[in-house]
Protein backbone atom coordinates (compact mmCIF):
# COMPACT_ATOMS: atom_id res chain seq x y z
CA UNK A 1 0.00 0.00 0.00
CA UNK A 2 1.36 3.43 -0.92
CA UNK A 3 1.83 6.13 1.71
CA UNK A 4 -0.89 8.21 0.06
CA UNK A 5 -3.35 5.33 0.22
CA UNK A 6 -2.52 4.77 3.89
CA UNK A 7 -2.99 8.48 4.57
CA UNK A 8 -6.34 8.45 2.77
CA UNK A 9 -7.50 5.49 4.84
CA UNK A 10 -6.46 7.31 7.99
CA UNK A 11 -8.48 10.37 6.93
CA UNK A 12 -11.44 8.11 6.18
CA UNK A 13 -11.09 6.73 9.69
CA UNK A 14 -11.13 10.21 11.25
CA UNK A 15 -7.46 11.25 11.30
CA UNK A 16 -7.38 14.91 10.19
CA UNK A 17 -3.59 15.03 10.70
CA UNK A 18 -3.25 12.66 7.78
CA UNK A 19 -5.14 15.09 5.56
CA UNK A 20 -2.88 17.89 6.78
CA UNK A 21 0.09 15.90 5.53
CA UNK A 22 -1.57 15.34 2.15
CA UNK A 23 -2.09 19.10 1.90
CA UNK A 24 1.57 19.75 2.76
CA UNK A 25 2.66 17.24 0.19
CA UNK A 26 0.55 18.46 -2.73
CA UNK A 27 -0.21 22.13 -2.11
CA UNK A 28 2.60 23.40 -4.35
CA UNK A 29 1.54 21.26 -7.26
CA UNK A 30 -2.14 22.07 -6.86
CA UNK A 31 -1.52 25.82 -6.64
CA UNK A 32 0.62 25.58 -9.75
CA UNK A 33 -2.07 23.66 -11.65
CA UNK A 34 -4.74 26.18 -10.61
CA UNK A 35 -2.51 29.11 -11.57
CA UNK A 36 -2.73 27.74 -15.10
CA UNK A 37 -6.45 28.61 -15.04
CA UNK A 38 -6.76 31.40 -12.48
CA UNK A 39 -3.85 33.68 -13.26
CA UNK A 40 -4.16 35.90 -10.21
CA UNK A 41 -1.86 34.33 -7.55
CA UNK A 42 -4.04 35.37 -4.60
CA UNK A 43 -7.19 34.02 -6.24
CA UNK A 44 -5.30 30.84 -7.12
CA UNK A 45 -4.50 30.28 -3.45
CA UNK A 46 -8.18 30.69 -2.52
CA UNK A 47 -9.26 28.28 -5.24
CA UNK A 48 -6.59 25.78 -4.15
CA UNK A 49 -7.87 25.95 -0.58
CA UNK A 50 -11.42 25.38 -1.82
CA UNK A 51 -10.23 22.41 -3.87
CA UNK A 52 -8.61 20.80 -0.82
CA UNK A 53 -11.75 21.32 1.26
CA UNK A 54 -13.84 19.72 -1.51
CA UNK A 55 -11.38 16.85 -1.59
CA UNK A 56 -11.74 16.36 2.16
CA UNK A 57 -15.53 16.25 1.89
CA UNK A 58 -15.33 13.77 -0.97
CA UNK A 59 -12.65 11.56 0.53
CA UNK A 60 -15.10 8.90 1.82
CA UNK A 61 -15.86 8.25 -1.88
CA UNK A 62 -12.21 7.78 -2.80
CA UNK A 63 -11.74 4.07 -3.46
CA UNK A 64 -8.14 4.08 -4.65
CA UNK A 65 -8.96 3.23 -8.27
CA UNK A 66 -6.53 5.94 -9.30
CA UNK A 67 -3.61 7.56 -7.52
CA UNK A 68 -4.65 10.08 -4.89
CA UNK A 69 -2.91 12.92 -6.70
CA UNK A 70 -4.73 12.16 -9.97
CA UNK A 71 -8.04 12.28 -8.10
CA UNK A 72 -7.07 15.50 -6.30
CA UNK A 73 -5.87 17.01 -9.57
CA UNK A 74 -9.28 16.46 -11.18
CA UNK A 75 -11.02 18.12 -8.24
CA UNK A 76 -8.61 21.08 -8.52
CA UNK A 77 -9.25 21.50 -12.25
CA UNK A 78 -13.03 21.36 -11.78
CA UNK A 79 -12.88 23.82 -8.89
CA UNK A 80 -10.83 26.24 -10.99
CA UNK A 81 -13.21 25.95 -13.94
CA UNK A 82 -16.25 26.43 -11.71
CA UNK A 83 -14.60 29.44 -10.14
CA UNK A 84 -14.02 31.04 -13.53
CA UNK A 85 -17.58 30.27 -14.62
CA UNK A 86 -19.00 31.75 -11.41
CA UNK A 87 -16.85 34.81 -11.90
CA UNK A 88 -18.30 35.09 -15.44
CA UNK A 89 -14.90 34.42 -16.93
CA UNK A 90 -14.53 31.86 -19.63
CA UNK A 91 -12.59 28.80 -18.51
CA UNK A 92 -9.70 28.01 -20.83
CA UNK A 93 -10.52 25.45 -23.50
CA UNK A 94 -7.22 23.69 -22.96
CA UNK A 95 -7.03 20.80 -20.59
CA UNK A 96 -4.12 18.92 -19.13
CA UNK A 97 -4.09 15.18 -18.81
CA UNK A 98 -3.92 14.04 -15.21
CA UNK A 99 -0.88 11.89 -15.90
CA UNK A 100 0.96 14.93 -17.27
CA UNK A 101 0.13 16.88 -14.17
CA UNK A 102 2.67 14.96 -12.14
CA UNK A 103 5.48 16.45 -14.18
CA UNK A 104 4.99 19.90 -15.61
CA UNK A 105 7.87 19.58 -18.03
CA UNK A 106 5.63 17.13 -19.87
CA UNK A 107 2.66 19.49 -19.80
CA UNK A 108 3.33 22.28 -22.31
CA UNK A 109 -0.08 23.81 -21.63
CA UNK A 110 0.99 24.58 -18.09
CA UNK A 111 4.41 25.82 -19.14
CA UNK A 112 2.65 28.62 -21.03
CA UNK A 113 1.81 30.14 -17.68
CA UNK A 114 5.37 30.21 -16.44
CA UNK A 115 6.88 33.63 -16.06
CA UNK A 116 10.49 34.41 -16.99
CA UNK A 117 11.17 34.94 -13.29
CA UNK A 118 9.91 31.52 -12.27
CA UNK A 119 11.75 29.82 -15.12
CA UNK A 120 14.95 31.56 -14.11
CA UNK A 121 14.46 30.70 -10.47
CA UNK A 122 13.80 27.05 -11.29
CA UNK A 123 16.82 26.89 -13.58
CA UNK A 124 19.02 28.41 -10.88
CA UNK A 125 17.66 26.02 -8.27
CA UNK A 126 18.24 23.02 -10.50
CA UNK A 127 21.78 24.13 -11.23
CA UNK A 128 22.48 24.67 -7.53
CA UNK A 129 21.06 21.24 -6.66
CA UNK A 130 23.19 19.54 -9.32
CA UNK A 131 26.28 21.30 -7.97
CA UNK A 132 25.48 20.10 -4.45
CA UNK A 133 24.96 16.52 -5.67
CA UNK A 134 28.27 16.57 -7.57
CA UNK A 135 30.07 17.64 -4.42
CA UNK A 136 28.60 14.75 -2.38
CA UNK A 137 30.49 11.50 -1.62
CA UNK A 138 29.91 9.05 -4.47
CA UNK A 139 27.65 6.63 -2.55
CA UNK A 140 25.47 9.46 -1.28
CA UNK A 141 25.23 11.08 -4.72
CA UNK A 142 24.36 7.77 -6.37
CA UNK A 143 21.63 7.06 -3.82
CA UNK A 144 19.89 10.42 -4.30
CA UNK A 145 20.25 10.26 -8.09
CA UNK A 146 18.67 6.80 -8.21
CA UNK A 147 15.86 8.00 -5.98
CA UNK A 148 15.06 11.40 -7.49
CA UNK A 149 16.05 11.02 -11.13
CA UNK A 150 15.45 7.31 -11.70
CA UNK A 151 12.46 7.06 -9.36
CA UNK A 152 13.71 3.86 -7.73
CA UNK A 153 12.38 2.69 -4.36
CA UNK A 154 14.69 2.24 -1.36
CA UNK A 155 14.51 -1.52 -1.83
CA UNK A 156 15.55 -1.26 -5.48
CA UNK A 157 18.38 1.13 -4.61
CA UNK A 158 19.57 -1.24 -1.87
CA UNK A 159 19.71 -4.07 -4.42
CA UNK A 160 21.45 -1.90 -7.00
CA UNK A 161 24.02 -0.60 -4.51
CA UNK A 162 24.29 -3.90 -2.64
CA UNK A 163 23.71 -2.42 0.80
CA UNK A 164 20.98 -2.52 3.47
CA UNK A 165 17.83 -0.39 3.07
CA UNK A 166 18.72 1.51 6.26
CA UNK A 167 21.99 2.64 4.65
CA UNK A 168 20.11 3.83 1.57
CA UNK A 169 17.73 5.77 3.78
CA UNK A 170 20.52 7.54 5.66
CA UNK A 171 22.49 8.28 2.47
CA UNK A 172 19.45 9.86 0.86
CA UNK A 173 18.78 11.82 4.02
CA UNK A 174 22.36 13.18 4.05
CA UNK A 175 22.05 14.20 0.42
CA UNK A 176 18.71 15.84 1.09
CA UNK A 177 20.15 17.77 4.04
CA UNK A 178 22.96 19.13 1.87
CA UNK A 179 20.49 20.09 -0.87
CA UNK A 180 18.15 21.68 1.66
CA UNK A 181 20.94 23.85 3.09
CA UNK A 182 21.64 25.26 -0.36
CA UNK A 183 17.95 25.65 -1.31
CA UNK A 184 17.20 27.41 1.99
CA UNK A 185 20.04 29.86 1.31
CA UNK A 186 18.67 30.62 -2.13
CA UNK A 187 15.10 31.04 -0.88
CA UNK A 188 16.29 33.40 1.88
CA UNK A 189 18.32 35.41 -0.63
CA UNK A 190 15.29 35.60 -2.91
CA UNK A 191 13.10 36.86 -0.08
CA UNK A 192 15.61 39.53 0.95
CA UNK A 193 15.84 40.94 -2.60
Amino acid at each position, binding site marked *: *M*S*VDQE*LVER*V*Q*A*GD*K*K*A*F*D*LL*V*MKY*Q*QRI*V*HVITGFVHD*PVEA*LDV*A*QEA*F*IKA*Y*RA*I*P*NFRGDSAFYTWLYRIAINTAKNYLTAAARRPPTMDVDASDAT*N*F*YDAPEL*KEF*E*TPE*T*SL*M*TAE*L*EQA*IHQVIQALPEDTATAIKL*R*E*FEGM*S*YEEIAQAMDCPIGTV*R*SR*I*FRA*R*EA*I*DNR*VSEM*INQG*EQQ
Partner: protein
Amino acid sequence: MTINQHELLSALVDGELQGDELEQALLLLDSDEQLRAQFQRYQYSSDVMHGNNYQHSHIDLTKGIAQALVSEQTFTKQGLIKHKAALLAFPKQFWTQAASLAMAASVGALAVVGITSQSQNQFIATSAVVASAAANNTGNGNRWTVGEPEIEDRLNTYLVDHNEYAGASGVFSYARLVSYEAGQ
Protein backbone atom coordinates in the same frame (compact mmCIF):
# COMPACT_ATOMS: atom_id res chain seq x y z
CA MET B 1 14.78 17.93 16.52
CA THR B 2 17.09 14.99 16.05
CA ILE B 3 18.80 13.53 13.00
CA ASN B 4 16.49 10.55 13.24
CA GLN B 5 13.49 12.84 13.00
CA HIS B 6 14.89 14.52 9.90
CA GLU B 7 15.68 11.15 8.41
CA LEU B 8 12.11 10.12 9.07
CA LEU B 9 10.85 13.18 7.18
CA SER B 10 13.21 12.47 4.31
CA ALA B 11 11.81 8.95 4.05
CA LEU B 12 8.30 10.39 4.24
CA VAL B 13 9.01 12.61 1.22
CA ASP B 14 10.05 9.46 -0.62
CA GLY B 15 6.86 7.67 0.38
CA GLU B 16 8.83 5.02 2.25
CA LEU B 17 7.08 5.13 5.62
CA GLN B 18 4.38 2.73 6.76
CA GLY B 19 2.55 1.88 9.97
CA ASP B 20 4.19 3.03 13.20
CA GLU B 21 6.82 5.17 11.49
CA LEU B 22 4.13 6.98 9.52
CA GLU B 23 2.19 7.52 12.73
CA GLN B 24 5.33 8.90 14.39
CA ALA B 25 5.95 11.27 11.47
CA LEU B 26 2.34 12.48 11.60
CA LEU B 27 2.66 13.24 15.30
CA LEU B 28 5.95 15.10 14.77
CA LEU B 29 4.52 17.21 11.97
CA ASP B 30 1.45 17.97 14.04
CA SER B 31 3.46 19.22 17.00
CA ASP B 32 6.64 20.81 15.65
CA GLU B 33 6.54 23.88 13.39
CA GLN B 34 10.24 23.60 12.52
CA LEU B 35 9.79 20.03 11.37
CA ARG B 36 6.80 21.08 9.28
CA ALA B 37 8.91 23.73 7.58
CA GLN B 38 11.70 21.20 7.11
CA PHE B 39 9.37 18.68 5.53
CA GLN B 40 7.98 21.29 3.14
CA ARG B 41 11.49 22.31 2.07
CA TYR B 42 12.42 18.65 1.47
CA GLN B 43 9.25 18.26 -0.57
CA TYR B 44 9.98 21.45 -2.50
CA SER B 45 13.55 20.35 -3.36
CA SER B 46 12.27 16.96 -4.43
CA ASP B 47 9.63 18.57 -6.67
CA VAL B 48 12.26 20.83 -8.26
CA MET B 49 14.47 17.77 -8.93
CA HIS B 50 11.46 16.18 -10.63
CA GLY B 51 11.29 19.19 -12.91
CA ASN B 52 8.35 21.01 -11.37
CA ASN B 53 8.45 24.75 -11.72
CA TYR B 54 6.70 26.71 -9.01
CA GLN B 55 5.99 30.40 -8.71
CA HIS B 56 5.89 30.25 -4.94
CA SER B 57 8.51 28.54 -2.85
CA HIS B 58 6.81 29.10 0.48
CA ILE B 59 3.12 28.44 0.02
CA ASP B 60 1.43 27.15 3.15
CA LEU B 61 -2.27 26.49 2.85
CA THR B 62 -2.32 24.07 5.76
CA LYS B 63 -3.41 26.55 8.44
CA GLY B 64 -6.28 27.97 6.42
CA ILE B 65 -7.44 24.51 5.44
CA ALA B 66 -7.13 23.18 9.00
CA GLN B 67 -9.26 26.09 10.23
CA ALA B 68 -11.86 25.46 7.58
CA LEU B 69 -11.92 21.76 8.44
CA VAL B 70 -12.62 22.38 12.14
CA SER B 71 -16.30 22.78 11.32
CA GLU B 72 -16.25 19.80 8.97
CA GLN B 73 -17.30 16.40 10.22
CA THR B 74 -14.65 13.94 11.30
CA PHE B 75 -15.09 10.68 9.50
CA THR B 76 -15.28 7.43 11.43
CA LYS B 77 -14.77 3.86 10.30
CA GLN B 78 -18.38 3.09 11.14
CA GLY B 79 -19.56 6.15 9.26
CA LEU B 80 -17.46 5.08 6.31
CA ILE B 81 -19.00 1.60 6.32
CA LYS B 82 -22.48 3.14 6.47
CA HIS B 83 -21.52 5.56 3.72
CA LYS B 84 -20.30 2.73 1.51
CA ALA B 85 -23.40 0.71 2.32
CA ALA B 86 -25.54 3.69 1.38
CA LEU B 87 -23.67 3.95 -1.90
CA LEU B 88 -24.28 0.28 -2.59
CA ALA B 89 -27.91 0.31 -1.41
CA PHE B 90 -30.62 0.48 -4.06
CA PRO B 91 -33.09 3.37 -3.92
CA LYS B 92 -36.62 2.71 -2.63
CA GLN B 93 -38.02 3.21 -6.10
CA PHE B 94 -35.88 0.27 -7.26
CA TRP B 95 -37.55 -2.09 -4.76
CA THR B 96 -41.05 -0.93 -5.79
CA GLN B 97 -40.21 -1.55 -9.43
CA ALA B 98 -38.57 -4.89 -8.61
CA ALA B 99 -41.69 -6.03 -6.67
CA SER B 100 -43.95 -5.08 -9.59
CA LEU B 101 -41.66 -6.89 -12.01
CA ALA B 102 -41.57 -10.01 -9.81
CA MET B 103 -45.36 -10.07 -9.61
CA ALA B 104 -45.69 -9.67 -13.35
CA ALA B 105 -43.15 -12.45 -13.88
CA SER B 106 -45.07 -14.76 -11.51
CA VAL B 107 -48.34 -14.15 -13.34
CA GLY B 108 -46.58 -14.76 -16.63
CA ALA B 109 -45.05 -18.00 -15.34
CA LEU B 110 -48.43 -19.21 -14.07
CA ALA B 111 -49.98 -18.48 -17.43
CA VAL B 112 -47.26 -20.44 -19.24
CA VAL B 113 -47.55 -23.40 -16.82
CA GLY B 114 -51.34 -23.35 -17.18
CA ILE B 115 -51.18 -23.45 -20.97
CA THR B 116 -48.60 -26.23 -20.94
CA SER B 117 -50.65 -28.27 -18.52
CA GLN B 118 -53.78 -27.78 -20.59
CA SER B 119 -51.92 -28.90 -23.73
CA GLN B 120 -50.71 -31.98 -21.92
CA ASN B 121 -54.23 -32.85 -20.75
CA GLN B 122 -55.44 -32.39 -24.28
CA PHE B 123 -52.69 -34.73 -25.48
CA ILE B 124 -53.71 -37.35 -22.92
CA ALA B 125 -57.34 -36.97 -23.83
CA THR B 126 -56.47 -37.27 -27.49
CA SER B 127 -54.41 -40.36 -26.74
CA ALA B 128 -57.33 -41.84 -24.86
CA VAL B 129 -59.63 -41.23 -27.78
CA VAL B 130 -57.16 -42.78 -30.19
CA ALA B 131 -56.64 -45.74 -27.88
CA SER B 132 -60.31 -46.12 -27.38
CA ALA B 133 -60.80 -46.02 -31.11
CA ALA B 134 -58.03 -48.57 -31.55
CA ALA B 135 -59.71 -50.80 -28.95
CA ASN B 136 -63.01 -50.47 -30.71
CA ASN B 137 -61.37 -51.22 -33.99
CA THR B 138 -60.23 -54.56 -32.67
CA GLY B 139 -63.89 -55.44 -32.23
CA ASN B 140 -63.36 -58.77 -30.50
CA GLY B 141 -61.21 -57.20 -27.76
CA ASN B 142 -57.92 -58.57 -29.07
CA ARG B 143 -55.16 -56.02 -28.52
CA TRP B 144 -52.48 -58.24 -30.00
CA THR B 145 -52.10 -59.69 -33.35
CA VAL B 146 -50.69 -62.85 -31.85
CA GLY B 147 -53.88 -64.91 -31.99
CA GLU B 148 -52.87 -67.10 -29.06
CA PRO B 149 -54.59 -66.26 -25.73
CA GLU B 150 -51.67 -67.52 -23.64
CA ILE B 151 -49.16 -65.24 -25.29
CA GLU B 152 -51.67 -62.41 -25.20
CA ASP B 153 -52.09 -62.87 -21.42
CA ARG B 154 -48.36 -62.96 -20.93
CA LEU B 155 -47.92 -59.73 -22.91
CA ASN B 156 -50.66 -58.02 -20.88
CA THR B 157 -49.07 -59.17 -17.63
CA TYR B 158 -45.70 -57.91 -18.86
CA LEU B 159 -47.13 -54.45 -19.57
CA VAL B 160 -48.88 -54.23 -16.21
CA ASP B 161 -45.77 -55.36 -14.32
CA HIS B 162 -43.54 -52.86 -16.10
CA ASN B 163 -45.90 -49.94 -15.93
CA GLU B 164 -43.93 -48.42 -13.02
CA TYR B 165 -40.84 -48.07 -15.21
CA ALA B 166 -42.53 -45.66 -17.54
CA GLY B 167 -39.99 -42.98 -18.54
CA ALA B 168 -42.45 -40.27 -19.46
CA SER B 169 -45.92 -39.40 -18.44
CA GLY B 170 -48.61 -40.09 -20.95
CA VAL B 171 -46.77 -42.91 -22.66
CA PHE B 172 -48.04 -45.72 -20.50
CA SER B 173 -51.42 -44.12 -20.20
CA TYR B 174 -51.90 -45.18 -23.74
CA ALA B 175 -50.28 -48.53 -23.08
CA ARG B 176 -52.61 -49.11 -20.16
CA LEU B 177 -55.62 -48.36 -22.22
CA VAL B 178 -54.64 -50.77 -24.92
CA SER B 179 -53.40 -53.49 -22.63
CA TYR B 180 -55.80 -53.61 -19.71
CA GLU B 181 -58.64 -55.92 -19.93
CA ALA B 182 -62.04 -54.27 -19.75
CA GLY B 183 -62.53 -55.49 -16.19
CA GLN B 184 -59.19 -54.29 -14.87
